[in-house]
């Protein structure tokens, strides 16, 4: 039984094309709100199905050095969750089909506070939220999930290689939208995913649920993405590779276009 909450995410996964959806993570407002929007527009135009828009926290405990540097950059420029929600609205005004997931940590949501946050992102046009450090034992996770689900939005849950079957059952029971399958033990952008491990993990999840599975962490190149697409997952998630590309080409005036080309290299492999 799959809980269908976000109609837009449901539509994306029911569509036969592309065969494997590209989910791409961008740090919201990085390097600036204006360039961030341009980068994301290019990503959409080059076939991204779902966007994860990261909001920033200084103690982000799951980010490797690449994304951490981008977080620090945005924080030192003084951009906060309100600016990220504004960015979501601008993205939604530009495109009505792409899925939008806000991704980050519970620290900011707790202070926003949670009920206002859900109201505001619904108006802005987001489809889901992913909170890295909010396991379902946390009261605030329950409040957030309830408020999101009541509004037809999803809380994206994570499953890691260290998640045992008992816990996995609890997670798929409350999951909606898609399940974020974490390929490696660790932080973003460091280790590389192993095809056999990922395939076995997808099987383990499939035994329990029919919810769409998106496979993330350790997918660094279009070739990686193609390999992981063979694992049986419904989508592949690429984050640090795009953020690193932006970091390395931050001075380049044609950055949005060249990032668009990079995104296209990935989506071409996933058709």
């Amino acid at each position: 039984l799959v809980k269908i909450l976000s109609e837009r995410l449901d539509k994306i996964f029911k569509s036969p094309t592309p065969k494997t959806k590209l989910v791409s993570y961008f740090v919201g407002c990085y390097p600036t709100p204006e360039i961030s929007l341009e980068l994301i527009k290019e990503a959409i135009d080059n076939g991204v199905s779902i966007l994860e828009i990261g909001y920033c926290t200084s103690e982000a405990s799951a980010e490797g050095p690449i994304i951490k540097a981008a977080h620090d950059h945005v924080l030192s420029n003084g951009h906060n969750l309100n600016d990220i929600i504004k960015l979501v609205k601008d993205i939604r005004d530009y495109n009505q089909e792409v899925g939008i997931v806000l991704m980050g940590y519970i620290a900011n949501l707790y202070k926003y506070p949670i009920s206002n946050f859900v109201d505001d992102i619904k108006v802005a046009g987001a489809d889901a939220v992913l909170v890295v450090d909010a396991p379902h034992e946390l009261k605030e996770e329950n409040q957030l999930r309830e408020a999101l689900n009541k509004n037809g939005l999803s809380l994206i849950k994570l499953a890691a290689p260290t998640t045992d079957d008992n816990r996995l059952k609890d997670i798929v029971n409350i999951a909606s939208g898609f399940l974020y399958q974490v390929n490696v033990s660790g932080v973003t952008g460091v280790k590389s995913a192993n095809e056999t491990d990922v395939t076995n993990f997808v099987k383990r999840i499939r035994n329990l649920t029919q919810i769409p599975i998106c496979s993330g962490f350790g997918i660094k190149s279009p070739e990686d993405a193609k390999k992981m697409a063979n694992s049986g997952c419904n989508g592949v998630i690429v984050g640090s590779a795009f953020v690193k590309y932006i970091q390395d080409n931050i001075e380049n005036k044609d950055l949005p276009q060249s990032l668009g080309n990079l995104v296209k290299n990935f989506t071409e492999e996933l058709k």
Partner: protein
Amino acid sequence: MGKTHLICESGAGQHFSATAAVAAKFNMPLIGVMGDIDIKRVNQNIIKAKHYGAKLEAVPGTLKEAITSAIKIWSSNPEYAYICGSAVSSAPFPKLVAFAQSIIGKEIREQSMEQEGKIPDMIVGCVGGGSNFAGAIYEFLDEPNVKKIGVEAAETAALTNGTPGIMQGMKTYMLQTEDGAKSLGGMSLGAGITYFSVGPMHSYLKDQKAVSYSSATDQEMLDAYKMIAQTEGICSALEPMAGAAEIIFRQAKDKPKDYIICLSLCGRGEKDLDTIQEHIGKDFE
């Protein structure tokens, strides 16, 4: 548990050297994560840990950054057991650490009964994450007649100046920006109490009004150090001098002679001698 490696974080380096001793005894590789600012100022503890065979991992910053980094290394290596050094982070660490440290309170009770014939009227300790103070008062939580005061560094006094927030796996008082995006807090001379937040148990005890919390400045800590050195012949670590300052300059002033105040003198002073020399050396000698 099937764990083959150990990881810990440390501020004052005391937990690092202690964990390194355990790692040596049980023949397990240990990585200790510390902020580069602390590595410079508590070098003695680090030398000791290295002699025991532990590996040091330096990160820019202090205890806060060391904890976030230790969590990252731990989650990247399922074969590591995280030996959390304070009553902080997610369950079950605060409970585990408070329980392990509760030996302090048991000894306070035993020694106070033996030497004074009664338990203390007041227990004071310094608080960074709050492990040593949690241990000192654990035994006396059901005894409201024992007054308990935890003392933070004035520059990072989460319980005095902070607000509730959720970071590093715990919901507790912390110094952070209003929107929760950034941790805040300055620098204290006491490496072990330079921490933007505090273990959740202390936030609960503060809200329950079961324990009082205050703070002490660097100058107060140095003044207390001087007095303790000259009157007791004790070379104390700087961290518990926050507690000593609270006693000397505030609490003890109006107390009768038979009022027993117990100060938890955690850590060891050798690691701070360079810092102390630098700040009060000339006048002191």
